[in-house]
């Protein structure tokens, strides 16, 4: 967050409604929180807003303050008794959504800047449901939703999920979020890290706001300087400096330990115990696999150069924290280093501390971010939106492991991590920001505002198009002024559930009223849910004609005329009827239809509808794809 907000133009001087913001409560369902972090200090905060009905039940040695106004923990697997974050994840997400502004935050000097959440003046209520050994139990997640909704939070952020979509009546996050939505609370969820596999998005319910992860213009790399003066760019998050010293280079196979049952291949790969520590000390060891740094460290090497089997671009996506001066390089660079080493009698190298460089291709959706299409409701485009989720610096728990190498005992207050977990709270922060300007807006109106004002993303850099980034990249400054919103309320979602086969009896139980499902011809397809994006699946090799029905609400200027503009892909006709919408008052609603027709052709067509009044631009993606 020392760069991600600025990257979006959402800098420290943006206009804010500070008083309203301090009444916003963000519920964070995660691995707990580190209450002593500077990101959660309550300096300058008054008492909790009067609407707060929650409690501070964080357990042993856990104290709330006027920033963290609530804390609860749930653990059906054991008697663990604290909301204190042991994994760092919950503190990271909470501070990204609503952490204070903290100057000079960094990870050992890396990514230094002012760490801050989307709404620094907002309050946080932490609900711990995840534990290092047992994960996050469904029963506990549902309990957290039950409490958070009743406690009076305004938004829920949940960077938790499974590896695949689950039917709504068995998906605890969909269930909890549905009841949250019914009470006016928007739930924002991480889309998942199972990309780039098609249909890997696990957050699929239309009342959820599902977030993909993308890059920012900051990229952390490290340089390796060889004895011949040549510089090779490597990937890792390396906080160590060799202070200008060039050290001897040695390949793993040259320092095979004879005391253990190890092969030359094991030594090449730097397997722990297979390196002779006497021959390694004070040297940089070259290893034929990425995890070789573990063996290198155990043998006492001064540093390590590691071969990654990923391309340079992909390696960057998973740049890992190393516990010694180490850097990963892809095969081209690796071979260059080996070639240099073999060409000289006394090969030397220096691994520099990581540094931030400009990433000019951003924003690009990360490879790991889960992809659509939606496997449960193909007519609802998921993920919904994309936000920064790569190498994000935010608060961390000082007792949490900082790397996958468990012997790395370093402790940090701020850490750089990646995932859709990190992108999710960025959207929560923006949703909270929008709510400060429009406190009475429904969850779907806030979601629509964020989706229809998103930056367009470049499909040539994002192979899966809308299935990777949804409506595009969040644009916080525009989201407060969308002009029109696509609003969807509880009865609309219920109608959609009916079309998916929900019985009247189950419907009445879920809705809590006497609703009945529409019969026969009144039944509505999920494609007609008043969603801010349009998606449909059609049969392969057959001509198609699809009509989407939508209604927009005027939240811009009382007297305004919006004109439709549609990009027309080849061999497809897209018509909007009416193509002009005239509004006379605020909150006035106007309906229209979009008809997409075409012959068999490309398996994926992507277009967009933009309503424009000259001041606002309200963009919705239109995606039609073949069923496989």
């Amino acid at each position, binding site marked *: 967050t020392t760069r991600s907000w600025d990257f979006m133009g959402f800098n420290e001087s943006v206009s804010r409604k500070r008083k309203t913001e301090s009444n916003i409560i963000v519920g964070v369902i995660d691995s707990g929180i580190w209450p002593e972090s500077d990101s959660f200090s309550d300096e300058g905060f008054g008492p909790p807003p009067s609407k707060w009905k929650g409690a501070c039940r964080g357990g042993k040695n856990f104290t709330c303050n006027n920033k963290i106004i609530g804390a609860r923990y749930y653990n059906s697997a054991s008697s663990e008794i604290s909301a204190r974050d042991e994994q760092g*994840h919950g503190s990271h997400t909470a501070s990204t959504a609503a952490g204070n502004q903290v100057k000079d935050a960094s990870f050992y000097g890396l990514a230094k800047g002012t760490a801050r959440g989307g709404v620094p003046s907002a309050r946080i209520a932490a609900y711990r449901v995840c534990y290092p050994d047992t994960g996050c139990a469904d029963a506990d*997640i*549902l309990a957290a939703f039950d409490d958070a909704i009743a406690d009076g939070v305004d938004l829920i952020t949940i960077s938790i999920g*499974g590896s695949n979509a689950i039917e709504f009546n*068995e998906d605890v996050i969909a269930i909890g979020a549905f009841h949250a939505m019914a009470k006016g609370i928007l739930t924002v969820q991480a889309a998942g890290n199972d990309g780039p596999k098609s249909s890997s998005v696990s957050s699929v319910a239309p009342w959820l706001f599902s977030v993909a992860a993308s890059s920012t213009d900051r990229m952390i790399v490290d340089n390796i300087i060889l004895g011949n003066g040549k510089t090779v760019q490597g990937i890792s998050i390396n906080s160590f400096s060799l202070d200008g010293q060039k050290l001897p280079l040695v390949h793993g196979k040259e320092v095979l330990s004879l005391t253990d049952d190890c092969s030359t291949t094991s030594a090449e790969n730097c397997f722990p115990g297979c390196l002779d520590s006497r021959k390694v000390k004070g040297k940089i060891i070259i290893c034929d696999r990425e995890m070789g740094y573990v063996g290198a460290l155990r043998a006492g090497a001064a540093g390590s150069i590691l071969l990654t089997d990923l391309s340079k671009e992909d390696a960057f996506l998973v740049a890992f924290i190393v516990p010694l001066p180490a850097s990963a390089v892809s095969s081209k660079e690796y071979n260059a280093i080996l070639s240099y080493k073999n060409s000289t009698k006394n090969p030397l190298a220096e691994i520099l501390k990581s540094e931030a460089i400009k990433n000019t291709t951003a924003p690009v959706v990360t490879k790991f971010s889960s992809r659509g299409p939606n496997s449960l409701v193909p007519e609802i485009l998921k993920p919904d939106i994309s936000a920064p989720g790569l190498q994000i610096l935010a608060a961390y728990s000082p007792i949490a492991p900082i790397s996958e190498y468990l012997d790395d005992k370093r402790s940090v207050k701020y850490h750089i991590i990646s995932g859709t977990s990190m992108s999710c709270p960025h959207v929560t922060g923006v949703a909270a920001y929008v709510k400060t300007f429009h406190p009475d807006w429904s969850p779907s109106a806030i979601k629509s505002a964020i989706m229809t004002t998103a930056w367009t993303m470049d499909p040539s850099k994002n192979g899966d198009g809308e299935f990777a980034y949804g409506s595009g990249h969040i644009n916080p400054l525009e989201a407060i002024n969308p002009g029109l919103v696509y609003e969807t309320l509880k009865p609309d979602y219920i109608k959609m559930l009916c079309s998916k086969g929900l019985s009247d009896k*189950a419907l009445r*139980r879920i809705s809590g009223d006497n609703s009945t499902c529409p019969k026969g011809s009144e039944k509505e397809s999920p494609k007609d849910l008043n969603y801010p994006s349009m998606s449909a699946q059609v049969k392969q090799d057959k001509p198609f004609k699809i009509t989407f029905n939508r209604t927009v609400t005027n939240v811009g200027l009382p007297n305004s005329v919006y004109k439709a503009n549609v990009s027309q892909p080849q061999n497809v006709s897209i018509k909007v009827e009416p193509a002009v919408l005239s509004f006379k008052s605020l909150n006035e609603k106007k309906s229209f239809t979009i008809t997409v027709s075409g012959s068999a052709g490309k398996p994926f067509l992507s277009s967009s509808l933009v309503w424009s009044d000259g001041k606002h631009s309200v963009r919705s993606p239109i995606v039609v794809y073949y069923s496989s």
Partner: protein
Amino acid sequence: TDADTDRNLHIVYMGSLQEGQYSPASQHLTMLQEVIGSSSLENVLVRSYTRSFNGFAAKLTDNERQKLSSMDGVVSIFPSGTLHLQ
């Protein structure tokens, strides 16, 4: 007991809280008592959801799960799985 080892944590989802309702927690106990019979409810009911929606988490055998699924008010019953941080 053998029955205890066959029990797995399940979520019994019952939808919205009905307005002006009785105590949902006692309804959960009654429902469980009905399927468990004379056995003790101790360690069976893990948690009741009563503040924002209706449901409970309980350790059930397959047989008990089947009996509960046909009871009035139950929307769905499913094993409590494990999700992960993303």
